């Protein structure tokens, strides 16, 4: 499916989406967060992109971007979708009603970038330990150790 066709079929139903060409995929679809579930239902049932590749998130300091990758066996192509939520209220509807495989991806995006997925069935930390209260992939999370911290190594 070429980018124009994807654009034609999506924009008719969802006027708010923007389709751009992107890196040997069918295109990059930017959409407002409100239409998430409807858009993905249309992608899955109408356009045949029925395989969820990944869900990830990027911290752009003022807002946070959540991106999705779908694959269609019929078209043999990926499509890249992304949306942005404000960092002050990083809430997004969970994709699990449409793609159940989004479960772990969203748990990971929640704990690493701090996106709150509403109506997620099981939003527990996946990779970080219990009680870990940071979101490590935020830009504000400093990788370097604080000044004055000294790691002591004892020789035996």
């Amino acid at each position, binding site marked *: 499916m070429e980018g124009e066709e994807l654009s034609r079929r999506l924009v008719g139903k969802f006027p708010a989406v923007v389709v751009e060409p992107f890196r040997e995929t069918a295109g990059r679809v930017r959409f407002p967060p409100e239409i998430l579930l409807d858009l993905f239902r249309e992608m899955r049932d109408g356009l045949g992109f029925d395989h969820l590749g990944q869900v990830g998130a990027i911290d752009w300091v003022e807002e946070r971007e959540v991106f999705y*990758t779908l694959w269609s066996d019929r078209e043999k192509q990926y499509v890249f979708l992304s949306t942005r939520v404000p960092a002050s209220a990083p809430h997004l509807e969970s994709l699990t009603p449409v793609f159940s495989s989004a479960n772990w991806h969203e748990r990971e995006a929640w704990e690493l970038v701090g996106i709150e997925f509403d109506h997620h069935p099981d939003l527990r930390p996946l990779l970080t330990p219990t009680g870990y209260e940071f979101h490590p992939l935020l830009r504000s999370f400093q990788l370097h150790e604080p000044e004055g911290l000294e790691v002591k190594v004892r020789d035996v």
Partner: protein
Amino acid sequence: MSEMWINMGPQHPMTHGLWNLRVKIDGEIVLDVDPEMGYLHRGIEKISEDRHYNEIITLMDRTCYVAGIAWEHLFILAAEQALHVEPPERALWIRMLSEEFQRVASHLMWYAAFVQDIGLMSPFLYGMRDRDLVLDLFQSYTGGRLTYEYMRVGGVRNDLPPGFAEQARKVCDWLLDRFVEYDRLCSGSDIFHRRCDDLGVVKAQDCIRLGITGPMLRSAGVPRDLRKDRPYAAYDRVDFDVATAETADVTGRYVVRMEELRQSVRIIRQALDWLDKNPGPVMADNVPRWMGAPYAPVGREGYLLKREYPKGVGFSAIEEPHGEALAYVVNEGGEHPYRVKLKSPVFVNLSAARHYLVGYRVADIPPIMGSVDICVGEVDR
């Protein structure tokens, strides 16, 4: 008998790594499972934000410790898109050759571990022995046996040494001979079939619904392989078949992987022929020096004050030995990538554990999980 939760792991022979499978059982029957990950979380995506592009290669090797060069390949493909670098053609073929060797090594490692899960000790040694030959080949041209640090943005570190093709062809012949013996030991045996048939079944539509990729999906009869469907490197110029099976069970995954081993050898032979005939550079010209080690001293402030760098994003997908791996690299014009997102196929295959474990017996868990081919390094990253 009452229901109870038990922990299989983090230290358990079934896990092949460091993770914990919580299992709810009633007697011998599995009622529910809950994988607990994170024991091997090293924050590779975060560390990548603080490293130069070439330095991230060292992390990619450690992302999956049995398929290091496949992950290098994945990252390099995305990074080259983000940095607008075109590698020379010979580098593409060497990368493809490396990835196929890595697939052979990874599948042999899987074979060794899987047969041990179902109680066979000798094939474990055979698999490890033959994998060692492939690692020797890797050592001869990358310098490493497990962590290769071979690919670079814009090409590969060095060309193949003289005499490599001859050695590699001998290994290929030897391996094809071995695969026959493997099959005699496992799938030629009725005990194997009685143990593994109809175990851990995930049908094709469930695989797609759950996002499962790789040999698990192909064992359900879906001929999906990114090397065929979305060719990268030079896969569109070699001849190979996509291995599939119909049974969607543990035996099916075994059959698919054994066939993939043969197809990988087929690709390796074609790549060796091409590389013999087409010498050339393996590193692109015009690779900017700021891309990082080992070509540039970078890292002190002040170097970069007076320069502007091109921005870009890169998205790559490869057929890793375990399934489809995706990488997304955002280059915001600094020395370091702004964000590196890696999607591991095992991550998804493992998240569907409830669908292929529930209803079977506790003693079936090791063969089923063994057939999934877990690599915890790339799940936790």
